[in-house]
């Protein structure tokens, strides 16, 4: 496992995607055939089910070290990763086991049906024969994410660099149906088990943020204006009865959205459409936060499908019965798209993006500012004559986002993050004034630089009230501008309001806790209290 261990060490230390890719390519050059297949399996979410429960691993670690549970938990909250905590706490190895990645995986699969006593014997033997980093990897092979920032796309790019095969084709190959016991690495890469002609996507056409006065764009009638949605930009490819859903990051996400696949099956025609994957419920678009709960799951449960149903807002038609029509004008493609969707079953799940009627450029700003009320993030302006460009081209497509709502709030709790962020306090709770005290209004995790997070962590360490556990109450002193997408009255929240998608806009070092907003001021932002 030395090569695999070196690979993980090389990948985890860098935050540069290219360095990760280089490390993967180096590994592919020297790893045994079967190990390479396991690498793909592990990093595409196809891993076998966990053979040993984490509670057992934790229990065995406590037995070996003789340490109290509270100390284990305290250590865990400092490390942020269970497999790593165990690997760090165990005593030094007394001998050395050297097995290939595929040997380990084969043994772990065979371990699954065994008794707890057998599992214990096996795991303890492995632990005492591996050094720290290998032990960590062993624990991760049992289960859990490596959290080293290797996406399917990164893996695919490395495979492409190694083999010279087109990346999208490889994406289809590794996502496709294959069995580790019945395929060679070469056949997998060559896609012997797939038909790439059926899945091949087009590069997405991307828009720039609007940077000029609207009248300078020309006449209003030359432009098609639609709402902009905050979901996952996607391309649905339907050819010869096969259906593929590509995300903008060129990942195949077909299996994550069974309801979209079901609708596509109701069409006879072949086509490629561009649009937005959104969480849709009762004809309304939910927030990206809701959609996020559906993503990257191995299995989408029935409850998930009911709680957060997904739909597709269709923007454009790129291919029609085998013919690439991307160079035709937008107005023509839109016409065909309307025909196509009329022919399909009328459906709540597949919705054509609405065209906003307007006479005068001056009307648009008001429309944009209301967009937030139904969870749109602004407007898209597309030149009616424009082709479907490859990538980002300036001039034909513009995005014009709504300005976020903001408040000034003070930090009162901090918690450590996970993965790369596990060493720092990165997750914060914010409060505004209420009467003579404070009331929490939002939790936010994003929006600060690493440097700012380091500085805040230092502040938290100095000013924390608690000594144990993951959460720290801090002196209300640091003020932040919090941006959010919407606000509504809520009985479930102590403050009486719920903010949607809050994030940190900036650290207001110029402000003190006296300058923060009051809950009354926050409530004034509610335009639509229903």
């Amino acid at each position: 496992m030395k090569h695999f261990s070196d690979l993980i060490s090389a990948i985890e230390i860098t935050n540069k995607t290219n360095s990760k890719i280089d490390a993967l390519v180096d590994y592919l050059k020297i790893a045994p055939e079967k190990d390479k297949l396991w690498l793909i399996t592990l990093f595409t979410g196809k891993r076998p089910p966990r053979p040993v429960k984490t509670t057992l691993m934790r229990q065995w670690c406590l037995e070996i070290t003789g340490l109290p549970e509270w100390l284990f938990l305290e250590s865990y909250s400092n490390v942020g990763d269970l497999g790593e905590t165990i690997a760090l706490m165990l005593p030094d190895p007394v001998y050395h086991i050297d097995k290939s990645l595929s040997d380990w995986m084969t043994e772990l699969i065979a371990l699954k049906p065994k008794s707890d006593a057998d599992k214990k014997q096996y795991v303890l033997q492995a632990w005492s024969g591996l050094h720290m980093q290998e032990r960590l990897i062993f624990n991760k092979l049992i289960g859990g994410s490596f959290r080293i920032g290797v996406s399917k796309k990164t893996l695919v790019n490395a495979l492409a660099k190694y083999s010279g095969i087109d990346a999208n084709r490889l994406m289809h190959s590794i996502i496709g149906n294959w069995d580790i016991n019945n395929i060679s690495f070469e056949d997998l890469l060559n896609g012997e088990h797939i038909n790439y002609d059926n899945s091949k996507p087009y590069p997405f056409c991307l828009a720039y943020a609007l940077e000029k006065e609207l009248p300078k764009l020309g006449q209003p009638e030359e432009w098609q204006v639609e709402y902009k949605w905050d979901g996952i930009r996607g391309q649905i490819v339907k050819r010869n009865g096969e259906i593929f859903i590509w995300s903008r990051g060129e990942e195949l996400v077909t299996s994550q959205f069974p309801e979209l696949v079901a609708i596509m099956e109701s069409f006879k025609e072949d086509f490629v459409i561009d649009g937005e994957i959104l969480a849709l419920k009762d004809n309304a678009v939910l927030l990206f936060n809701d959609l996020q709960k559906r993503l990257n799951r191995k299995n989408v449960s029935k409850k998930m499908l009911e709680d957060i149903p997904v739909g597709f807002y269709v923007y454009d038609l790129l291919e029609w019965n085998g013919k690439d029509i991307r160079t035709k004008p937008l107005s023509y493609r839109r016409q065909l798209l309307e025909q196509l969707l009329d022919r399909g079953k009328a459906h709540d799940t597949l919705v054509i993006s609405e065209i906003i009627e307007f006479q005068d450029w001056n009307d648009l700003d008001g429309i944009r500012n209301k967009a937030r009320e139904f969870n749109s993030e602004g407007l898209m302006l597309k030149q009616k004559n424009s082709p479907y460009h490859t990538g980002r081209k300036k001039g034909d497509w513009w995005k014009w986002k709504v300005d976020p709502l903001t408040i000034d709030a003070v930090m009162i709790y901090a918690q450590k993050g996970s993965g790369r962020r596990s060493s720092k306090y990165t997750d914060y709770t914010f409060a505004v004034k209420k009467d003579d005290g404070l009331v929490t209004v939002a939790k936010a995790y994003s929006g600060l630089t690493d440097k700012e997070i380091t500085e805040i962590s230092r502040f938290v360490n100095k000013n924390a009230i608690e000594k144990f556990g993951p959460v720290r109450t801090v002196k209300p002193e640091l003020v932040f501008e919090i941006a959010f997408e919407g606000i509504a009255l809520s009985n479930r929240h102590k403050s009486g309001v719920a903010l949607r998608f809050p994030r940190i806009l900036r650290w207001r070092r110029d402000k003190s806790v006296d300058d923060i907003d009051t809950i009354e001021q926050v409530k004034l932002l509610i335009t639509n209290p229903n």
Partner: protein
Amino acid sequence: MKLIKFTQKGIYCIPGKFYLDPWLPVDYAIISHGHADHARRGMKHYLCQTDSKAILKHRLGADIQVESLNYNEPKLINGVQVSFFPAGHVIGSAQIRLEYKGFVVVFTGDYKVKNDYLTVPFEPIKCHEFITESTFGLPIYNWLSEAQLQQQMHDWVQKNQAHNRTSVFLGYSLGKAQRIMKLMEGVDKMYVHSAIHNLNIAIQGSGISLPETELLSYDFKKEDVQNKIVILPPGLLGSKLIKKIPNAATAICSGWMQIRGNRRWQAVDAGFAVSDHADWNGLLSAVKATEAEKVYVTHGSQATFSKYLNEIGIPSAEVKTEYGTEEEEKDVVSEKIISP
């Protein structure tokens, strides 16, 4: 017997009328070692271990009033017998032993139990009361042996050289830098930053020999440094100087690098858990060896470590001090700020 008192200014010896590593100006300060959070400016009179004297003068000013003692060389101050014992932390670092009417208190300052073949190795001392640091007082901190650590670092340099890269190590000027020099001795030519170079001269001035290094001058030639070893203070991470070093591969050397999240937080190419502090087992063995009836735990994981000591039957209390901050805040990478 109450020999010591924890005050706003620092640890105070009642009958001796002096302070140990005070953080506010006092008349008489006994200093455990030269790091800035333990040896501060503004004391009327300093007492330190012989090898620390030059370091203190270098850092605090040549005009300070400083007196020194060898290890295990007692001095009587107001009836209190004061002596220094090796702490193994950095060159000249000492545990401060106080004895008064047969009652013994030992203050560790910072210490490391394992031998780094550079500083005089830590020596356990029996005492009634023991005041210990707890920087790495969690069971997740268990250091590799010096030989294993050295192997890791040598392998890294070798790999860098194979890829035509210059190996840049980041570590504090006092302590970590000399430790890295020792670990990398004989591998290849080592260049050090002027801050480290000047300290090296001060250390060598008191008769201690260090591995051979060369000053990294401001106008160094790229071809001289290419593929070699460079040692810099951590504050230079991301600086223009580092960018000037050809094909630099950077590594942070700090005990915090034991944790993956810490290694990954910094945009560097490697992290080595090289620490000048005791690890979990080091702290425990040191505490047990003292056979103290009371253990005071200072800076680091004081709450956790002292709770654990109480649970295993060693009466302990945590003490709030101002240690473990000063040295860190000047540097980008801190040895101590991360732990609660």
